[in-house]
């Protein structure tokens, strides 16, 4: 019997619709896969969209070499489970110059992520790239269309976005231009967690609390994930019960002290907290107001 669909069921259907439109209307799509919880949900939706076929596009991980080890493990497994090709791209120049988050600050993100992404998209000639950004994350993202156009140099022009009516998406573009597609635009952080719970989606264990070695730096709790982390004078990693609300490069991602070891507990903690999700990311802090918009104009995802 027909019944009222839940909010999550509607969101799921909407996202699947978007993913299929892209496959039908673009030449060479790719899914940006960052191994975080949003990527996990997006990948799951792609599997649903094309079942029983595997999703007809590869996954692309723009690697910085500084992700948490646990992320690399899940990345390889998730791609294999989905039956999808996994492309890993590392910016050669950043590698040669030894760009790292400790010595190079914002340049680290710029070269590994922003430049790396552009290089990878150019290298493989992808004309459409799925990304797992949500509108509730940040105020310039709240303004972005589901189908977001990029010039041949990957720039975003926020003042000149295409109208996007109903669920009709215009995927036409000139040679060299590309589209970023955000199938989970309308999901909130809570939606993501609930969906992970209801669909039993595997996520990186770092989202759950466990005793882990950390040092405190500039007000952030940084996990010492491998031996590359230079310790400052007097810094001694200590074991604390921590978890992460968002995952990126380990030296740039702040942990929270927590005892939440199950999904329900994580969700509960998230709902009781009074600070926003991206607060733990050093990257959003460095340029202040409007920084995300600026990054996007320059080609950050």
């Amino acid at each position: 019997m027909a019944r009222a669909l839940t909010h999550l069921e509607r969101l799921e259907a909407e996202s699947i619709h978007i993913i299929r439109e892209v496959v039908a209307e673009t030449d060479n799509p790719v899914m940006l896969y960052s191994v975080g919880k949003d990527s996990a949900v997006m990948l799951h939706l792609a599997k649903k969209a094309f079942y029983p076929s595997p999703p007809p596009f590869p996954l692309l991980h723009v690697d910085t070499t500084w992700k948490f080890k646990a992320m690399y493990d899940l990345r390889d497994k998730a791609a294999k489970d989905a039956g999808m090709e996994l492309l890993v791209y590392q910016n050669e120049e950043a590698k040669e110059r030894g760009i790292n988050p400790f010595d190079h600050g914002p340049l680290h993100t710029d070269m590994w992520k922003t430049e790396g992404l552009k290089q990878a998209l150019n290298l493989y000639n992808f004309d459409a790239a799925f990304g797992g950004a949500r509108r509730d994350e940040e105020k310039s993202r709240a303004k972005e269309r589901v189908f977001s156009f990029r010039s041949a140099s990957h720039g975003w022009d926020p003042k000149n976005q295409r109208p996007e009516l109903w669920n009709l998406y215009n995927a036409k573009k000139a040679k060299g231009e590309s589209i970023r597609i955000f199938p989970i635009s309308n999901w909130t952080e809570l939606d993501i967690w609930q969906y992970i719970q209801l669909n039993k989606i595997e996520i990186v264990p770092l989202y759950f609390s466990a005793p882990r070695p950390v040092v405190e730096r500039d007000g952030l709790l940084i996990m010492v994930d491998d031996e590359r982390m230079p310790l400052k004078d007097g810094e001694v990693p200590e074991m604390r019960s921590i978890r992460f609300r968002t995952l990126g490069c380990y030296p740039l991602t702040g942990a929270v002290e927590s005892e939440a070891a199950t999904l329900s507990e994580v969700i509960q903690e998230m709902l009781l907290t009074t600070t926003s999700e991206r607060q733990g990311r050093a990257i959003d802090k460095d340029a202040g107001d409007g920084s995300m918009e600026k990054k996007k104009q320059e080609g950050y995802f």
Partner: protein
Amino acid sequence: MNDVQNPIYKTDALIAEDIDKYLDAHQHKTMLRFITCGSVDDGKSTLIGRLLYDSKMIFEDQLEALQADSKRVGTQGQEIDFALLVDGLAAEREQGITIDVAYRFFTTEKRKFIVADTPGHEQYTRNMVTGASTADLAVILIDARKGVLVQTRRHSYLAQLVGIRNIVLAVNKMDLVDYDQSAYLDIVQDYREFAAQIGITDFTAIPISGFKGDNVTDRSANTPWYDGPTLMEHLESVEVSADADLAKPFRMPVQWVNRPNLDFRGFSGLISGGTVKPGDAVRIVPSGKTSTVKSIVTFDGDLTEAQAGQSVTITLDDEVDCSRGSVIAAADSPPQVADQFEATVVWMADEALLPGRSYWLKLATQTVSASLQAPKYAVDVNTMEHLAAKTLDLNAIGVAELVTDKPIAFLPYKDEDGTLNKTLGGFILIDKITNQTVGAGMLHFALRRSQNVHWQALDITREARAGMKNQEPKVLWFTGLSGSGKSTIANLVEKRLHRMNRHSFLLDGDNVRHGLNKDLGFTDTDRIENIRRVGEVARLMTDAGLIVVTAFISPFRAEREMVRQMCAEGEFVEVFIDTPLSVAEERDVKGLYKKARAGDLKNFTGIDSPYEVPEAPELRIDTTKMTAEEAADRIVEYVLGW
């Protein structure tokens, strides 16, 4: 009010007590999608910021940032400027206006909300329509000091046009009129009169101050004369028929054919209406073939029934022809099929609508070529009068007839009983050159039932005709400036073909403008129609097996592209006679450039009307590097495939 000492982020008691119970309840909350709209500076963004703030959706760190931002770039001195929570683009914050829609999300104990904050500036109307197209409710704001303005009317009209049924009239900035009841009542009365004209019979009026918070979530002591609901109470309780689509007959536009191996062929799509079960009889539209549903396949297992709003993959019992663009529908109640329509169109591009130009039309999963006639009328949003119009400019709304190059499955956007068919009745128009979305429209009805017009089946095929002539039909489309040498070279080409027993025919200005097109002048619209007719004639001639040579300036890419689309694959050969303006002007065989320079000839290509150079012509003839004879030889070689 407007104190920031309130508790900041909301926590429902149940979250701490029993998270699983909370989550279950949360999952089953209903959802309301709404927009705020109205004139510039009426306080839309401020109101949304206030709603987010009052429903405790603002985190501590966000609030700190807001306080700092308010002091720095806010419009309210030292006080909190709630609009800054929503106006997220740098340009918006600098100018204190909204440019594009912001989508924000919030939840109360009763409901979830997605709110789209739309811009008030007329310039950004297309962004308002973007937000409105998916909304269930519109909050129309009015500045209590200013009353009903043009943009209030335009937005109300657009909201009603896209089918928003629930209208809230929020008379805002009551703090600036001392909460004066009569000011409020006057505005409500004014609005009521206007609303009736556009068919809005029912709306809920609320006196508020988004800035101070009166009647937003808390009932205000400043308006003792008002006993209706607060805005939040209304938003939380208003009925929305989320499942109106369920009652419709089954329909699913096919997005993608799923073919993992030879044994599986499924059709994937988002069900737009009704329900479907294995065993149901279905019809594939436009082809009209029928079949039976075999299974409904999903990642989570086969379904015994699926319904509107779900994305599924359907397999059928028969190997019927069905692909992207087809609609799978209940066999006894399929959508209609037509290729000529009347529609309301909202124009969204700086470049005005060009009647006769071919645009892409996307409706559900169908993309076809379409051209619009000159509008029957445009609507004056201020008076709702129907104005005579030759075109539609940016943000204009009008009614026009349109023709698609092939029949499409559709439904009227609004049925007579008021049912909305957004999926099969709403479309967008895309410029074929710039790829921009230039318009949006809502179909009214088909102009005639094209099901009844069958092509006269021809016993003698075009292949047979061409075969008899021992040649491949082609359209050699010469394009270039006046005096570039099109006619001269075209004539030489014809002579050579004739000598080789090839059957050709030359169409040029002289033999067309004097007869078939003698009713046309040289305005952009007429030039397009000129080319369209020539294209059609050329195409008929290729059906007859001829090699057609045309010699028209044909300055616009879009029209040349239109003719290319008319022709069979590979038959259109664009020949760019490339002569620089300076050279053509110097030759000036007919003395036309001189006249144009003197201002005696208007709309002359190259002088006061543009020539759009072909981007990828099949042949480019540089007349500064070869003679007309050499050029003709090149072209003939190309045509005959040597």
